[in-house]
């Protein structure tokens, strides 16, 4: 039995055990059982993924499973990368969930509805919502769905037939939906989030299903082997139709604009460990689907496919990061940041597609490797960030950055680990996000020299793409300075934040695992070179060369000039910092820093309300991007009754709604409602009318028969 088979066996049996034990275990042991089994399932994925990336192959067909088809599984290096990604996320999340869904904490409590109000400083007075908590993420349903969700995600990259893929895809959607809805009793917004998620994910499924079914019909078989072999038989028009459909479908799962609307809702309303799984792991499976079908099964396509992906990716990156940079809800911010990062991955995939169509496989390989590497990096830091946000939520019951702060001293471990994740997400060295963005930029830079005489389209799109990546990097930096600086530093802005305490050991351990992954990816990315090369061998149109030459500590790109050593940069920073610190210590001669009240221009004691909040922090950006964001202002001026010139209070509210969503979806929903209301008239209860329908039907059929006969 190969290692992959063993790993998949662990996944399957772990999931079955998880469902059974999760449902049967007494409530006290449930968190432990579900968490451990989730980690075990994840470990199975890691095992299988490592084996596959190490060069093993594996396939299995079980005809007795899955009626009207067969459960067909096959694992290659591309599957392996995503098995590893999802599995690793699940391991960390499983460990974390033991503490998170265990007793205690404020995250089950009703969040502060009066955020931004003066009363918010008082904080929720209710005690830790232990009971509400048991009904939410710790409920029997949610706990037994967790390992199953992970297993479904892990099996998606292993699926090797249309039916298998779609069944697992939907199983993943269903289990994640159950988990998103876990806290439905506590907040009304959970139900809306679940609905949006369900609707968007089903829309995605429709697109994928249609695309794959058409593909299978054209190729004459539904197994991936048949699709691969038969993709040449499809007409160019059909191929493009299939590609566009699956791009829409997988893109909606990946959270690209304008199909991203479920993401900020679902990710912020789901329990945090679930958000981590969804945002880090599930979203990247959208990328997997796109690569698998677009580049493997269809084998790449014309230039405009790449351009389409590139354009949508660029828009997603920009829009996502803009919304993230002005978001005030920590989990919403992270969700929009997911859209941003997915956009970056799509830029990589799209550019790879463009260069592959031009025949430049080396460059395409580098860009594809950048996209996959970024997916892995994103998974690592986003897991960490969502778990960190979960720790904050558990400790304070708050997601609102405007009410947080001061956690660095109260939750030092969480703060430090969140900082690691934020560094990665802000794409700054020595974080891990920087590495993959660097590879991406390198790929784009060399498009000039590598393509010789580039097309006009490339000459316009590639610089714009670079601009987008650059602007995204800049705004991403703002976003995470805000998230970390406002959320964790300074003095607490509410009493609950002031009363926060550090998370339990398991949660810290889960975050630590994710942070270790971030550090590993940041410092030794070159070790990904060989696996990435193997991965690219799977994809015919980009398979030449080895994108990252494994040259020890430096990251070198093969085929094109470019090198960078994250490890040495980190070492340099460490050495420089340490020597400066040592010098400073010499100079200080043992004099400690005096702790003094912060300088408040000599005024009264600094109030936490004088601190900059997330809203005020983002204010300049909101102004700069006023045309895109269009914030809504709301000013209530209440004068005294005696005179309207004497103001008793002024209340100012600002909201930054999702413009794209507001433009696209309400009209659609309104139209559906009108349609529904109109069609109610069809069934008005009159028998005469109903009979008339029948006669009209009969008559028209007879007429048609008469005419055609």
């Amino acid at each position, binding site marked *: 039995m190969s290692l992959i088979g063993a790993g998949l066996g662990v996944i399957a049996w772990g999931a079955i055990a998880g469902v059974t034990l999760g449902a049967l275990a007494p409530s006290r042991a449930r968190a432990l059982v579900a968490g451990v089994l989730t980690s075990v399932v994840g470990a199975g994925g890691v095992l299988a993924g490592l084996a596959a990336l190490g060069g093993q192959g594996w396939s299995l067909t079980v005809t007795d499973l899955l009626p009207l088809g067969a459960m067909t599984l096959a694992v290659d290096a591309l599957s392996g990368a995503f098995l590893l990604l999802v599995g690793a996320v699940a391991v960390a999340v499983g460990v974390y969930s033991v503490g998170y869904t265990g007793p205690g904490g404020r995250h089950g409590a009703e969040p502060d509805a009066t955020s931004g109000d003066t009363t918010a400083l008082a904080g929720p007075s209710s005690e830790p919502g232990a009971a509400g908590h048991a009904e939410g993420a710790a409920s029997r349903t949610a706990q037994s769905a967790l390992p199953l969700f992970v297993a479904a995600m892990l099996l998606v990259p292993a699926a090797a037939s249309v039916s298998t893929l779609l069944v697992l895809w939907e199983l993943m959607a269903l289990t994640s939906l159950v988990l998103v809805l876990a806290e439905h009793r506590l907040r009304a917004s959970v139900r809306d989030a679940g609905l949006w998620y369900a609707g968007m994910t089903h829309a995605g499924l429709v697109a994928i299903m249609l695309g794959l079914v058409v593909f299978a019909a054209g190729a004459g078989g539904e197994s991936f082997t048949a699709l691969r072999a038969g993709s040449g038989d499809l007409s160019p028009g059909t191929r493009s139709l299939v590609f566009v459909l699956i791009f829409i479908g997988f893109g909606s799962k990946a959270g690209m604009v304008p199909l991203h609307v479920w993401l900020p809702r679902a990710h912020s309303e789901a329990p945090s460990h679930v958000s981590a799984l969804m945002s880090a792991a599930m979203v990247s499976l959208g990328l997997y689907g796109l690569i698998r079908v677009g580049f493997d099964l269809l084998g790449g396509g014309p230039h405009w496919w790449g351009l389409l992906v590139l354009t949508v990716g660029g828009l997603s990156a920009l829009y996502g990061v803009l919304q993230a940079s002005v978001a005030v809800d920590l989990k919403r911010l992270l969700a929009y940041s997911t859209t941003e990062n997915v956009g970056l991955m799509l830029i990589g995939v799209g550019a790879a597609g463009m260069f592959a169509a031009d025949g430049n496989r080396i460059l395409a390989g580098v860009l594809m490797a950048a996209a996959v590497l970024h997916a892995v990096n994103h998974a690592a830091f986003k897991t960490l960030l969502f778990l960190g946000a979960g720790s904050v939520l558990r400790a304070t019951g708050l997601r609102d950055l405007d009410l947080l702060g001061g956690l660095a001293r109260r939750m030092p471990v969480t703060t430090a680990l969140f900082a690691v994740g934020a560094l990665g997400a802000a794409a700054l060295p020595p974080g891990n996000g920087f590495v993959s963005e660097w590879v991406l930029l390198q790929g784009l830079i060399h498009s000039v020299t590598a393509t010789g005489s580039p097309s006009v389209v490339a000459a316009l799109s590639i610089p714009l793409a670079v601009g987008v990546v650059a602007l995204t990097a800049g705004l991403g930096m703002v976003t995470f300075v805000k998230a970390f600086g406002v959320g964790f530093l300074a003095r607490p802005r509410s009493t609950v934040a002031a009363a926060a305490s550090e998370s339990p050991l398991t949660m810290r351990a889960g975050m630590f695992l994710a942070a270790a992954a971030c550090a590993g990816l940041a410092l030794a990315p070159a070790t990904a070179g060989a696996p990435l090369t193997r991965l690219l061998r799977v994809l015919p149109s980009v398979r030449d060369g080895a994108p990252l030459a494994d040259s020890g500590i430096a990251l070198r790109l093969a085929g094109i000039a470019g090198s960078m050593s994250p490890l040495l940069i980190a070492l340099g920073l460490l050495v420089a910092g340490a020597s400066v610190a040592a010098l400073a210590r010499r100079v200080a001669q043992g004099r400690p820093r005096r702790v003094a009240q912060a*300088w408040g221009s*000599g005024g009264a004691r600094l109030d936490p309300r004088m601190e900059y909040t997330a809203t005020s922090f983002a204010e300049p950006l909101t102004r700069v991007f006023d045309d895109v964001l269009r914030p809504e202002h709301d000013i209530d001026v209440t004068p005294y009754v005696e005179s309207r010139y004497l103001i008793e209070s002024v209340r100012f509210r600002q909201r930054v709604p999702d413009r794209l969503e507001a433009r696209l979806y309400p009209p659609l929903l309104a139209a559906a409602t009108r349609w529904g209301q109109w069609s109610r008239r069809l069934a008005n209860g009159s028998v005469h009318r109903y009979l008339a329908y029948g006669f009209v039907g009969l008559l028209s059929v007879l007429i048609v028969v008469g005419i055609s006969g």
Partner: protein
Amino acid sequence: MSVLRKIIRTGRVAESAPQAPPASADAEGADRSGPEPVAPLSGSVQLRHVDAGSCNGCELEIASAFGPVYDAERYGLRLVASPRHADALLVTGPVTRNMADPLRKTYEATPAPRRVVAVGDCALNCGVFAGGHGVEGAVADVIPVDVEVPGCPPTPDVLIAALRGLTGR
């Protein structure tokens, strides 16, 4: 370009620096012995100006001391925004009740070693405001004063001479 022409036409307006005071004790009008220039501060003194209730006369003179003609900056003096960056406080005016506490806070916020320069008669002895109902007292009543610059207002050269005692330049 008109600015450029003006620059060329005007040339240097700073008057040549007077002889450095040999010791701060000789500083004009110091009726009590000022401190020796402290070694770490030599050559560079950042000043945080605190208007404790001045009539703005002293402010005008301070502004002019840092203007092109007197150019206090050439002695290593600079006005800064934060008391954290300051080596010395430049306090003007009698200390009003409302400004007493801020003045203390400013003093607290200044890192050691720190100096306090009381500028103008009002700062020294409340001047014409002595006994006013809103006046807390002279600067020395609130925080310890190291250098006193008398005058109502003190002229820039007097001020600069006193401050040069701090920088030692």
